Every structure is written in structure tokens, then in C-alpha cells.
């Protein structure tokens, strides 16, 4: 479904974030990418979302090079991928309800769908009583659950979670992981990046290790060239 072919990414200041990365993620997988800070995990996520372009190589989504996409095609790609950020990146001037409704409006959903789906998904992440609160009125765990709700509301084919538990305590971390597992059980491909070794044990499944911009380990070596 997602394929990185000989992908390298260097920034104008000379720092190399990724070096000759080859990786394939199949539909329905739960992939955990692990590595210390600066290993290139976030850059990998940004490339998947076409937020940045690789310096070399190609990133394919369903066998199409996403860096050849125009603006409209990139927008359509992002509607098929849900993204959860470590720093939440919620819209500060919109309530919990409006943050989710915005993602639906952007995807062209009708008012009826919004009215019926938003309370439902907020209930799913246990935020039904926080519906009309602004992000600054929510705790870290609540913000992250809201970010997950926003990421899954349009039933994306892929959910990318970039250090989603980085700012959370143990209790909230396990809650978030449980939600991600449930989403994966429903058929969504989940890509989770983390530097937390404890978390990897909790998640299990396919684990890819990164160091200094390279993939140094993959549970599923048959599909990955290191």
C-alpha cells in the first residue's frame, strides 16, 4: 500500500534525515517504527503525507508516486490518510466538536453526516462530555484522544500516529494504544512511530527499528531491504 524506494532526505543545512530507505507497508498492517530522537521517524511520516518531498527516491501510495501529485491530488491523498501528531495540532479556536466537524467538512461530508457522526466518534474516544470544550480546556490525554477522533472520522485507509503518547502518562498511553489497536482491527492500516521501548512491548506486531536515518531492523525482513 505504501512503499519507500531508495528514499533519502537531506535538508538545506546539510543534515541527513533519511538515507536510502526501502520499506513496504501492506494494507491492514499495524507497523511500529521505533528509534531514538533524530532517527528519521517524523521525516518518514511527513514524506508519507506529502508534507515534504524526498531528496532522492520515490514514495508510492498504491503504486503511484505521491510527489508527482498536484495540490488537488495531495488533498485527496490526505483525506485517505489520518494523522495523529505528538503535539496534537488541534485547531485552537474550534471546540472539540468543531475540530472533528472541520475534517468532515473538508472532505465534503453533508451536515446530516456531521451531526450524526461527530458525537458518535467523540463517544468512542470517551470525550462526549467535552464536546463543546476548546483544546486549551482539555488535558493532554483528552487532546490526544480528540486528535485520534479527528484522524479517524473520515474512515481513512491509513492512520499515521507520530509519537502519539509522547506527552501522556501511563494511563492515557495505554488508552491511546487500545484505541489504535481497535482501529486496526476494523481494517485500517496503522503506522505508529515511537521512541518508547515499553510501548513496543504493549503493541507487539511488526516493528521496524531506525537509527540515524536508516532502517536497522525489521520484523518482516522478507519485505524490507536494509
Amino acid at each position, binding site marked *: 500500500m505504501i512503499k519507500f524506494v531508495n528514499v533519502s532526505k537531506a535538508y538545506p543545512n546539510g543534515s541527513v534525515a533519511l538515507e536510502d530507505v526501502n520499506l513496504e507497508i501492506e494494507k491492514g498492517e499495524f507497523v511500529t517504527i521505533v528509534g531514538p530522537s533524530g532517527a528519521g521517524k517524523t521525516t518518514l511520516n511527513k514524506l508519507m*503525507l506529502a*508534507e515534504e518531498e524526498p531528496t532522492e527516491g520515490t514514495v508510492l501510495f498504491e503504486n503511484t508516486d505521491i510527489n508527482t501529485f498536484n*495540490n*488537488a491530488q495531495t*488533498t*485527496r491523498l*490526505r*483525506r485517505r490518510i489520518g*494523522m495523529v501528531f505528538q503535539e496534537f*495540532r*488541534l*485547531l*485552537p*479556536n*474550534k471546540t472539540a466538536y*468543531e475540530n472533528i466537524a*472541520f*475534517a468532515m*467538512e*473538508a*472532505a*465534503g461530508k*453533508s*451536515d446530516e453526516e456531521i451531526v450524526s457522526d461527530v458525537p458518535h466518534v467523540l463517544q468512542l474516544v470517551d470525550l462526549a462530555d467535552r464536546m463543546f470544550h476548546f483544546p486549551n480546556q482539555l488535558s493532554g490525554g483528552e487532546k490526544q484522544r480528540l486528535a485520534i477522533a*479527528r*484522524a479517524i472520522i*473520515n474512515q481513512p485507509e491509513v492512520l499515521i500516529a507520530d509519537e502519539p503518547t509522547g506527552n501522556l502518562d501511563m494511563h492515557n498511553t495505554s488508552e491511546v494504544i487500545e484505541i489504535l489497536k481497535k482501529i486496526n482491527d476494523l481494517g485500517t492500516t496503522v503506522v505508529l512511530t515511537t521512541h518508547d521501548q515499553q510501548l513496543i512491548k504493549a503493541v507487539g506486531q511488526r516493528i521496524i527499528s531506525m537509527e540515524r536515518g536508516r532502517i536497522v531492523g525489521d520484523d518482516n525482513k522478507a519485505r524490507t531491504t536494509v
Partner: protein
Amino acid sequence: MFWIRLKRVIKSGWINFRRNSVVSYAAILVTTITLAVVTGLFLFQAVLNTAIVNVENKVDIAVYFTVNAPEDQILALETDLEKLPEVASVQYISADQQVLAFRDRHSNDYLTLEALDELGNNPFGGLLQITAKDPSQYEAIAQVLEGNTTIAQTNSQIIDRINYSQNKTVIDQLNSLIFNARRIGLVLTLVLALVSIIIMYTTIRLTIYMARDEIGIMRLVGASGAYVRAPFLVQGILYGAFAWLLTNIVFLPLTYLAGTKLTTLLGINLFSYYTSHFFSVSGLVLVIGLLLGMISSLLAVRRYLNV
């Protein structure tokens, strides 16, 4: 779908406008200053034009006729002059009116009046006062009267003198003064308007700079560039509309006050001018406000859309 999106965009723009109240107040205030400067410049132009027209009206060419000049010939010349495209008006003052005006001017000067009485007959001839449509056209009118034209040849016997040559220097200086006043007024208007527009654009850019992360997030959750841009456009329109309202709240009482207190000094009743030209002046200011708000927002958002 278009109407649904339009409704959502307007609602979103209005909500952002309301929730970012401090930023909105600042943007409205700066936009109001811009529109007030533009309105003020319109009124300044009106005062300047009135002053110029008043001065222009005080200038004329006087054609003095000989004492025996037949009145019907003078009136025929008046008709001919009125037909000239350069001429705005021609006023005939008869010899009798001239002597009456003279007596009136010297009513306390018995010696002069006695001397006039001793003459026995009226020493004044008739007079035509000619006003041109534009001060620069006096020379052409003088040419018609003094040069090699049919009018000049026909009337050379009855024309005693024409005061154009005597007034030429004054008229030329006035022409140059009017030209410079208009040019300075225009340059001043353009410079002040440009400065205000730059300040307003910078303020709106700052408000959008504060929302740059938000713009990036919207793009990353799948919103198209147009869908992100549109609510900011609505906000820009709202800044312009509210600033226009504020400008009128300031200018209506201000011009009313100027109308009651300063009409003699300015030569124009600013309140009457402002209200009678409300659609052309304030309407234009509204269009300027809305356009500036929209264009500033569009240009400012564009920078942060490349996510």
C-alpha cells in the same frame, strides 16, 4: 454543494472573527484609520476644489467700450462671445450701471462726485465681464478680442481697452498656483492612501501570521487551499465592513460639526457635501475597505498554504 460550502465558509469566517476578538479589534481599528484617511482625503479634495473654483470665479476679462459705443453692438458682441466654447459667462454692465456703481463707491468723496457732476455727461462706457471655463483659456479669449479675427475687426471701433494684458501676470501666476495645488493634493492623496494601505496590509498579514500553524493543520487534515483561504477572505470582508461603519460613525458627526462651524472658512458645507455625495464617497470607501480586506487576506494566506 456550493451553497453548503459557502454557508460553512461564511459561518467559519464569522466564528473566527468573533473568537479572535482582540485581533479583530486591532485589524478593524487599523482599517478604520485607513478608511478615515481616504475619506479625509476625499473631503480635502472637495475643499481644495471649492477654494480653487472660488478663486477662479474672481478672475475675468473686462472689455471696456468707448462712451459712444452703441448698446446693440455691445449686446451683439456679448451674444458672439457667449457662443465661444471657452467662455463660461458674459455679463454686460451698462454705462449707467457703471456710473451708479462709481457714485456708490465714492459716496463719501464729495470732491470726486462734484468733479463727476461738473462733467455734465456720463464719462463711462459699457463693460463686458467675461469668465472663462478654465483660467488657462483667458489667453485664447483675449486673442479673439484683440487678434486678427472677425470679432476683433468688427468691434475694434467700439472697444476702448481690454484689461487682459494688465492682468496677464496675475492670471498666469494663478494658473500655476492652481496647477500646483491640484498636483500636490493628488500626490498627497496617493502617498497617504498608499501608506495607510501598507499599514493595513501589514496588520492583516500579522493576524494571519498568528494563524499560520492553523492553516498548516487544516491542509494536513485534507482541506483544499480554497477551503482554507475562504474563511480568511470572509474575515477580511468583515474587517472592511466594520471599519466602514466606524468611519461613518466618526465622519457623520465630524462633518456635521464642520458644516455648522467651518462653512465660511472652508467655503463649503462639508456635511451637505458628505451626505449629498454619500454613495459616491462613502460607497467608494466601502468598496476600497472590502477590496483591501479581501486582497490583504488572500495575499497573506497564500504564503502559508504551501503545506
